[in-house]
């Protein structure tokens, strides 16, 4: 009998379900889920986390993280999260929204949730399109970007400029932490995890609202290969949506 020689050096963390995801190849929703799941386990939060899932490609998040979860109507996750946290202040409340969900239909809910300083953490995945419904224009769609409802490219004269959520959320009184990160390379992924950790910490410490905007790919609706999609984040998205910490009341630092 030969004993197994390999040593396991890396495994998925407990919170992440053993299930194949439905995401398209090269989509970074899965990476964002993974970061959140790893952190919840590392910070010892998964047993007390109540998850609010939203509408969009990430609607099945509750199938991928082994957490108690409730599904919110389109855009309303911050209001649902408010109800969860107010009824159970001792729990850790996490929500996850796309850009159509958070910055369009749910604009009022996110602004007021942040402004009230609800002690919840929101992960905001910005891929500049409505993914699930087939690639329509989102509030974050870049100038000139072609989508199925902006076939000639987004025209700021008719459709306005892409909304910069992190900059807006940072101005609201109840926000304790707000940062924008990207998942296009290892360095940025590490940075993203750090930002998420900070956002989770401000909730754990009862300091206020935590918000992390993640620039993420949608190769399918961008009509790109996964590699091209990663390059688009670097070359087109980051210049308009600069990465960084926009508010951190623990550091007294504002960018």
């Amino acid at each position: 009998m030969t004993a197994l020689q390999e040593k396991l050096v890396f495994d998925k963390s407990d919170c992440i379900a053993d299930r194949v995801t439905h995401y398209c190849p090269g989509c970074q929703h899965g990476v964002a889920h993974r970061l959140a799941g790893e952190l919840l386990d590392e910070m010892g939060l998964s047993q007390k986390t109540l998850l609010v899932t939203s509408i969009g490609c990430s609607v099945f998040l509750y199938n991928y993280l082994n957490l108690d979860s409730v599904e919110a109507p389109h855009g309303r996750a911050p209001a649902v999260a408010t109800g969860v946290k107010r009824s159970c202040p001792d729990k850790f409340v996490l929500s996850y929204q796309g850009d159509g969900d958070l910055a369009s239909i749910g604009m009022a809910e996110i602004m007021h949730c942040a402004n009230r300083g609800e002690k919840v953490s929101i992960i905001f995945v910005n891929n500049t399109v409505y993914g699930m419904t087939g690639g329509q224009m989102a509030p974050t769609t870049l100038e000139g970007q072609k989508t199925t409802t902006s076939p000639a490219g987004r025209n700021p004269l008719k459709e306005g400029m892409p909304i910069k959520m992190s900059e807006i959320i940072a101005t609201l009184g109840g926000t304790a932490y707000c940062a924008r990160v990207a998942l296009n390379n290892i360095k940025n992924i590490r940075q993203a995890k750090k930002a998420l950790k900070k956002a989770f910490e401000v909730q754990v410490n009862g300091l206020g609202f935590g918000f992390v905007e993640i620039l993420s790919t949608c190769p399918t609706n961008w009509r790109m290969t996964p590699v091209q999609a990663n390059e688009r984040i670097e070359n087109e998205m980051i210049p308009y949506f600069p990465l960084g910490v926009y508010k951190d009341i623990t550091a007294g630092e504002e960018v």
Partner: protein
Amino acid sequence: MPNSERIFIKGNEAIARGAIAAGLKCYFGYPITPQNDIPEFMSAALPAIGGEFVQAESEVAASNMLIGAAATGTRCMTSSSSPGISLKQEAISYLAGSQLPAVVVNMTRGGPGLGDIGPSQGDYFQSVKGGGHGDYRMLVIAPSTCQEAYDTAIKAFDLAYKYRNPVMILGDAILGQMKEPVTTWTPDHIDDHNSDNWCLTGADGRDSHILRSLFLGEGELAAHNIMLEKKYKSMEAEIDQEMFECEDAELIVVAYGSIGRIVKSTIRNLRKKGYKVGLFRPITLYPFPSEAMKKLALAGKKFLTIEHNLGQMVEDVRLSIRTITDSDFFGFYPGNLPTPDDFEDPILKSMGGK
């Protein structure tokens, strides 16, 4: 009875106090006349007992906060009036689809659109037939006095948990703004009907609880709807109505809520004049008391439905008795406050006596 006292309060406050007696912990609302007494009362009363009050940014947000609190098994409520209830319909459909217990209060005003802030029963269709999307039902209870409003608030929570479903208390500007003596009471026992089996507490050493209304798998939604349909059918056990002077009546007037109460006074006056007329007041509007009404039809009674609208509940009355007889209808226009005298002529006309 524990915590019993006799107090003089508005219908709105009676509902608020009843809800607190029933164990309410979270209230989410947004101002709209004629129900502002409820959020105003809650803003002081709930924090005082360690509960939570949130004035939301909109009715949409308030009712979605309700989803969040209901998901944790916490007794929660929202209240509004007609235009605000239109906005709450999104969350009501999701509450029903995700099987979450919560109480929604609608103290109606005149419509359509902005209408006025006076009394009306124009929200019957919206409440009873489901103003939100999809196949769902909600228990709808319509009290007619401040005492009944208090008692109904307590009962509504029990039913919401029993059926894991939203329950609506349907009142109007008359009930909300009217002051009456109310005897308060607190239930000795609060039954959450094993909410621990489904609510969110953190998946600590057990499989996760997932509260959702999305069922994409083949046949999954059909199975969900079959289960919901059975549940809605079983709610018939809760059917409730008041019958007043029906025994020997030739004509039965069907009226609910505040109008039912005003009609009762009309009937008292007409009885004194020797007219054989009775009142059938549905208390549960969904499920509708069709069987009891049908029995009266089989006994040869005539029917007149009186509502404070252009004719909504009358459709359910007609459905209930359609194989035997029909119902006349008298609609008192929204925007005005009826008195018992206003109903005398229509009743006599329907009896053929005038």
